[in-house]
């Protein structure tokens, strides 16, 4: 014979159990619906070296005649250029060296390295297969978070990586399909993805979001330059794009954009990226020639020096140096970062 109290207790127990089941189902459903395998690889296999003709292999490093005599010739990508330039110039003064510095892109670095006209090449992406030339060694300087950026008036502050992928795929095409931090609906605006699908032969960067360009929404706006990305997002209330924190910071006076948290982690909270919780980032590397015939010892020393100096870069660059990544369990092959922490 059960008492009324027992019956009540039983009813409460059933209710609590039901709620737990519903909650877990939700999480499971969320996990099930999270697109799997959409993100591309972050790194390439360092053992895959580009096959080059013997003539090329024998070809020495020959600086461009327009540069004149230089102890070291460096070409830097446009993102590492502003952070490393003053350090390199200081090094040159201190060591009485003439260092020629070219500002370019990953492609320009790859081209100049392929033509063997520079001692050091700078990349803002992890090296692709075509970048791995015989005798070339990659030294990862560090990584920087790639932030999802939206219009400042957009009330959405946080999305999951799955939602981000659906947005760029065009599966979420209205902001009202998302929830604000207070639980309300997002703005009733069409989502306008803005992308810069650069360095298609290299891993990481935008490929961490979606591995191939065919996965991106047919409605996206594709831009070719960083300021165009910032301009497009800041001009369109429904736009979403991506860029590193430093570039957002660089154009903040002219163009206002807001960075989104991904899975609850803000891009400028670097510890989450170090811990592997924040999913999007770029890899910054410098190269040196290893073979004796083309190696420049001064270039090696400079790179070693830069590896130490990047540990003290200004916070505005939101730069995580390789040394910190090593400590956090990121995988390295020599100086080159080749894998995320487990």
């Amino acid at each position, binding site marked *: 014979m059960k008492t009324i109290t027992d019956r009540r207790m039983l009813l409460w127990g059933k209710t609590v159990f039901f709620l737990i089941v519903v909650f877990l189902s939700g999480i499971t459903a969320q996990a099930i619906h999270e697109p799997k395998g959409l993100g591309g690889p972050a790194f390439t296999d360092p053992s895959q070296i*580009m096959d080059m003709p013997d003539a090329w292999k024998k070809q020495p490093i020959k600086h461009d005649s327009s*540069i004149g005599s230089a102890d070291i010739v460096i070409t830097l990508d446009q993102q590492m250029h502003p952070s490393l330039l003053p350090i390199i110039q200081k090094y040159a003064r201190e060591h009485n060296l003439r260092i020629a510095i070219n500002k370019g892109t990953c492609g320009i670095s790859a*081209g*100049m390295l392929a033509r063997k006209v520079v001692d050091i090449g700078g990349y803002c992406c992890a090296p692709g297969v075509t970048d791995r030339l015989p005798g070339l060694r990659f030294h990862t300087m560090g990584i920087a978070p790639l932030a999802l950026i939206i219009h400042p008036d957009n009330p959405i502050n946080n999305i999951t990586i799955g939602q981000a992928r659906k947005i760029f795929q065009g599966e979420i095409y209205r902001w009202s399909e998302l929830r604000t931090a207070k639980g309300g609906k997002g703005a009733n605006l069409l989502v306008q993805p803005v992308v*810069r699908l*650069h360095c298609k032969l290299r891993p990481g960067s935008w490929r961490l979001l979606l591995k191939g360009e065919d996965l991106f929404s047919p409605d996206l*706006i594709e831009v*070719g330059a*960083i300021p165009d990305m910032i301009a497009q997002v800041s001009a369109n209330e429904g736009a979403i794009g991506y860029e590193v924190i430093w570039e957002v910071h660089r154009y903040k006076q002219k163009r206002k954009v807001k960075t989104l948290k991904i899975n609850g982690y803000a891009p400028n909270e670097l510890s989450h990226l170090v811990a592997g919780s924040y999913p999007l980032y770029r890899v910054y590397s410098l190269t040196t020639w290893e073979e004796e015939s083309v190696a420049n010892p001064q270039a090696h020393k400079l790179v070693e020096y830069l590896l130490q100096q990047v540990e003290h870069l200004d916070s505005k660059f939101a730069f995580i140096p390789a040394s910190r990544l090593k400590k956090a369990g990121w995988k390295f092959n020599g100086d080159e970062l080749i894998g995320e922490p487990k």
Partner: protein
Amino acid sequence: MANKRSLKSLIIALHKRVSLTIKMILVTVMVGVFVWVVVDQIQTHNLKSIFRAQFAERLSDQAMEDRLNFDRYVKVHHQSVRLFVAQKNFSDYIEKKKKDWSTEAPIQIKYYRRLPQWFPGLSVLRIFAKPRYALLLDSRGRVREVYHGRSRKGRLPPSLLQPTSLLLAKSRGQSFLTEINGASFLVAAESFFGFKGELLATLMLTSPIDEEFLNASLGRHQHEHIIALLTLGEKPQILTSSNLDELPAGTLLDTLKEHYLVTGEEFFDYGASELSIKLASFISMAEIESVTKSVLSLERKQRAIAAPVFILTFAFVMLWVTQRIQRLTQRISDFSQQTLGVQPQELQKGDQLYILEERFQRLTEDILEAREALSKEAEEKLILEKKSMEMDQKGEQLKLLQSVTEAVGVGVIKKTPDGLQAVNKQMEYFAQKCGGLSDFEMQDEDNLELSLLDKNGVNHIFYISSITFREEKILLIRDITEIKAQREALEHLALYDFLTGLPNRKLLCNRLRKAILAAQRERNSFALLMLDLDRFKEINDTLGHHIGDVVLKQVGVRLQSVLRKSDTIARFGGDEFAILLPVSDMEHAKYVSSRLLDVLKEPFTIKNNSLYINVSIGIALYPFHGEDLIQRADVAMYIAKQNQSGFSIYTPDQDHYNVHHLELTGELHRAIEHGDELALYYQPKLNYKTDSISSVEALVRWLHPQRGIILPNDFIPLAEQSGLIKPLTLWVLKTAIRQCADWHRARLKISVSVNLSARNLLDQQFQEEVTQLLKDGAVKPSWLELEIKESAIMVNPARAMEILKRLNTIGVRLSIDDFGTGYSSLAYLKKLPVNEIKIDKSFVINMAMDDDAAVIVHSTIELAHNLGLKVLAEGVESQEVFDMLAKLGCDVAQGNYICPPLPPAEFIRWLNKSSWHRGK
């Protein structure tokens, strides 16, 4: 040099001759031109800056769009090659050729000018990228076939005909920009695989990055700005541009920035580009200049319209200003002429402003000149006064000005080591007061007046003051004897009566105020006496004002003779005097009043005329009678005059200004107006001869609702003082006449007598009013008798005579009341048109006991009879008196013995019962 001088003189001449308006317009035009030029320069600069900024902004936006287009066009190559390879005709062709290409035979590249089989149709190419070259490579990466279209096949770089594995790797999956044999190329490749996944062929699309490529990427050939690709390096230069005619390849960027606005220099960060290039937008400065010029031209036109309007407006304003200047100039001239007496000089030619300046300058000079003259005069005066006291040659003695020395008698003061030492006492005092003459230490506030007697005994008053003049302390000594005398004379005129030399009302009031303060301080009393000469007007009227003035002077002297020095006697005007007796009490005031009355008893002998002057004195005392002593003494004086008592002391009861009297006056006014509180009582008059009542005296009673019956003595004075006596008399007359009429209608032939006041005898309309009342009441004038007090006639005998004569002419009987109390002589009465005299009751009542009274009554009766007048004795209170009067031959008797005053009804009852009526 001579030319310069003549030009200068010409300018000066023009400056003087040309009017202000024209000059100002010329200046405005010149300034306007200058401002125009400056504004134009600034406007041009500003407009250029604005347009440059505007163009730069617009160009920046355009540059972004161009970058997007270029980027899209580049990427389309990659997508195109993927699409082309996926076509069926491509796979069919490769399937067909794969056997042929597998041989090791030397390769003979096949060139196509027209579309090869493995290429899509023209309709597809129009939509997708149209490559300049399409290279078909076999499975081993060897070029087998080439489509070159309109391009010459020879321009294809050899490296492209033998592509490296790196080139193939980099161009697969993306549109790859690279440098091939010194030229920039886009390469996009896609491989074709067999069913087993084996590589069968690769299609490579390539285009040189040149003007054609650039224009194709932008989708246009002509545009307002030029897009160019810049190669980077130490000196950036044009790689290719959308308009090579204007911006040819190889042109250095630095040389272009002068003629072109360059913007949008952003990295083409494609990531698949090995080319160090930037895309930039150029716009010709000439084009910006052209737009600027067109706007500037419009703005200049607007200014060209505004300028004449401004100048015209300015001209009008200047004309107005010039007119105002001319008016101002005229005013200055008038001022100089009228105030300073300076005739304006004719000026040389010049404009209005010049003339104004000149006139003003002259005015300033004239004023300064006048000021200088005044200053000089003042200085001379100062020096003169300074010299009134100066050291002698040795510097040992201080000499006084001759006039001073003469006045003082001794003019030398010796100087000693201790200072100056005066020789005589006056100068000792002088020196002492000056605080030491030796160092002139006398302070400004130490001004003093010094009164000194000269050797002739004449008093001189010196005003000594110290002043600082040009940092020098000097003493000024002025003889102010005359000024002082004049001032004192003025003060005397203001405070003293010019006729008698006695203090006037102002001075007395002043001393009265001081006396009040002193009495308050000392806690004592003082008295104020108000004096009024009786019948003084008569003297003036009969003997003339000059005699009256002499009388007043002598009265003043006599009054002064009995007063103390501390007392103040003042003439208040007319025949009124006031005497202030400080520290005085009631007894002392009475004593002084008696003395004053005594001193005036003696006749005044003026030009052989002996004049007797009586005076009435009112006394008021502080603090007993308050602070308004003048008014209180005046009231008392009036009472004394009324009572002919010589002097009277103020009592509030007599003061119609006191609160009680004011209340009573108001009530009396109301009573007369309504008439319901007033009543007439009638007292019969017994005719000795007929032994009958032939007449009654109407006596007014005030039946006050609160105060009871008020007798005439208690309110008639109030009525006289307040001016209510006239309406009261008229009310009494009207009522009495009505009563008389009633009686006569009732066949009771009784005449009525009514008392008149002195005021009635001054009223010019009184006779007419009496006539009207008699007419209204239908009463014969002979039935009305008017009784006039002797004293009332004497207030203004002439006027009284005139009024009485008028009344007499209408037939009204007249009687002199209270005879014997006044000062009129029977001889005077003879002139009056009266019928009867009433002997005052004071004599009649006492005649039984007082022989003198009896004699007076007897004499009066006899005398009156001799003058043909009837005699009525009032105040008959006893049988004895009644009989005595009968024996003395008195005509009529009136008194309580016969009948007291009674209301009309009672009177009729009494009359009906009375034996007198029946001829007892």
